[in-house]
Structure formats: C-alpha cells, structure tokens
C-alpha cells in the first residue's frame, strides 16, 4: 500500500461518520455528526475535500439524490463506504490499537 492510499486522521473521522450514518450520509448530517462527536466546528468545504480524497482512493462512492426546495433546488450527494474502504478502516484500527496498547500515559483515561 502506498502512502497515497492510507487514511489521514480527518479522513478516518469522516469515513467512521459515514459508517455511523449508513444510508443517510450526505453533507449536512455528516457535518452535524462530526461536530457532535468531536465537539468542534467543521467546515463543509473541508468535509467535501476529505470525501473527494476518499473517493479518489476508492474508499467511498457517491450518488446524487433528488433536488429539494430547502436546498435552493440543489440535489443532495450521498456517500457510501466501499468494501475497500472498510478493509482500510479495519487495518488502520489494528495499527492504532497496537500503537495505543501499553502506553502508560493513556492508562485510566488520564491526560
């Protein structure tokens, strides 16, 4: 696997959010979920930038929904995690768990 195919930290957050949201994963709920889970403001532009990178790596696919009036007649774009994306998330999880395990600074939830 090349460096280009690895998941960045924000990309990992976005892909985990897509997995949580399932079928209803488009820009607005993705941002809301990310803000709720991380407690930080998220720029819609940065979410789409991450989604475009994930799509380039074939970790995510997208499809257009129907245009709605509340969106000024613009269509929603739904995103789904691919099998390749899921495999990459599992590998990242394994690597991170191995790195986290046994670190005294992270034992018992201390900062």
């Amino acid at each position, binding site marked *: 696997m090349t460096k280009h195919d690895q998941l960045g930290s924000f990309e990992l957050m976005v892909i985990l959010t897509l997995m949580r949201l399932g079928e209803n994963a*488009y820009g*607005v709920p993705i*941002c809301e979920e990310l803000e709720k889970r991380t407690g930080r403001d998220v720029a819609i*532009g940065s979410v*789409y*930038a991450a989604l475009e990178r994930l799509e380039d790596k074939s970790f995510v696919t997208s499809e257009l929904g129907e245009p709605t009036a509340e969106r*000024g007649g613009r269509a929603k774009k739904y995103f789904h995690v691919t099998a390749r994306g899921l495999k990459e998330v599992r590998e990242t999880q394994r690597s991170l768990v191995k790195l986290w395990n046994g670190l005294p600074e992270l034992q018992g939830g201390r900062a």
Partner: protein
Amino acid sequence: MNGNQPPRIAKWLLSHFGCSPNNDAVIGDLDERYRQGHSRLWYWTQVFKGIMISLAQELGSHKLVALTAVITGWILLLVGMLLFRAVVASLNTLVRSNQPGNLGFLRETLMFHRNISLAVLIGISCIGWTCIGWILQRLYRPNDKAMVLTFVITVVAALISVTLAVSIQQPIVSSPHPQWASITYGLVGICGNTLGLICLIMGAGLLRDTRSQFARH
C-alpha cells in the same frame, strides 16, 4: 428554523469561485444548514473556507499543472504588455506626425479628444486580459477554474508589491504633495489592473452561470 435567504453575494462567490467538483452539493448543504438557524457570518465564513480549501485541494493534486499554468499566464501577460507598449508607441508616433488624409483625421481625433485615446487604450488592455483568461481556460480544462484563480492570485500579489514599492520609493516630485500624488497614481494603477483582472476572469468564463452544468451531472 431560519426562513431568510442565504447571503446572495456569498452564494454567488462560492458558485463562481468554488473549485470543488461537488460545488453544487456544497452550496445546497450550506443553504440547508443556514435555514436551520446559522448566522450570516457563519455562512460567509463557510463560503470563504470552502473556496480556499477547494482551491488548495485542486492545487495539491495538480501541482505541476498549476506551476505550468502560472508560467503560461505570465508569459502571455508579458507578451501582451510588449504588444500594448507597441500600440502606445504607434499612437504617440501618429499624434506627433503630420499625416494627411484618414490618418490625419485619426491624429486630430486622438489629439483633441484625449478621452478617446484613453478609452482606446483601456479597451485594448481589457481585450488583452480577456484573451489571457480565455487561453488559460482552454489550456487547463478541466481544472481551469483553480488554475485561473492561482494565476490571478500571483498577479494580484505582484501588482500590490510593485505598486506599493514604486509609490513609496519614488514620490512624484513635480506635485505639491509628492507622497499623496504617488499614492493616488498607485491607486489608479490598482483600479486599472483590477478592471484587467475582472476581464481575465470573464474571459476564463468564471462569471458564467454554472447551475445548468451542475444540473446535468
């Protein structure tokens, strides 16, 4: 719920200068979130971030193309400036000469109606800038928006630095207020070049309505 319409200018800016292939979805999402109760400042911030992030993303994935676009733009600009100087020199020669007939009439017109000469020069300049934008847009599809914006940013940076340097270091000594005269001269230069850059952006088709294109995809 926020029943108001989102800020029009901000929305216009994003729809014309946002470089993301998902620009239409981004605008739709912003509208939806704005109507859920976010402020106008929030909308403007999101638009500004959206444009900058999408531009950075395009440049990051096409570094070499961006470099060649900037170099091509500057070559075109330098060639245009040389042609412009040649036109100005020809007009000066015409004004100073004693040409009879039609050319003589043109000379008289240019001499006695200086505004016409100025309008001709501004017109030629605008056509030049428009052509540069058009050529860049043709050469750098499908990333033309990001490439044209990058070139515009380099031109703006260069113009600001040069204008400031010239107006601060070389005050117009013939004026009773040399420093102010230089600053005014610099501001006129900036306004002229801003007009040129607007022509460049128009030539590149960035001010065209993009709704119909997105609707097709």
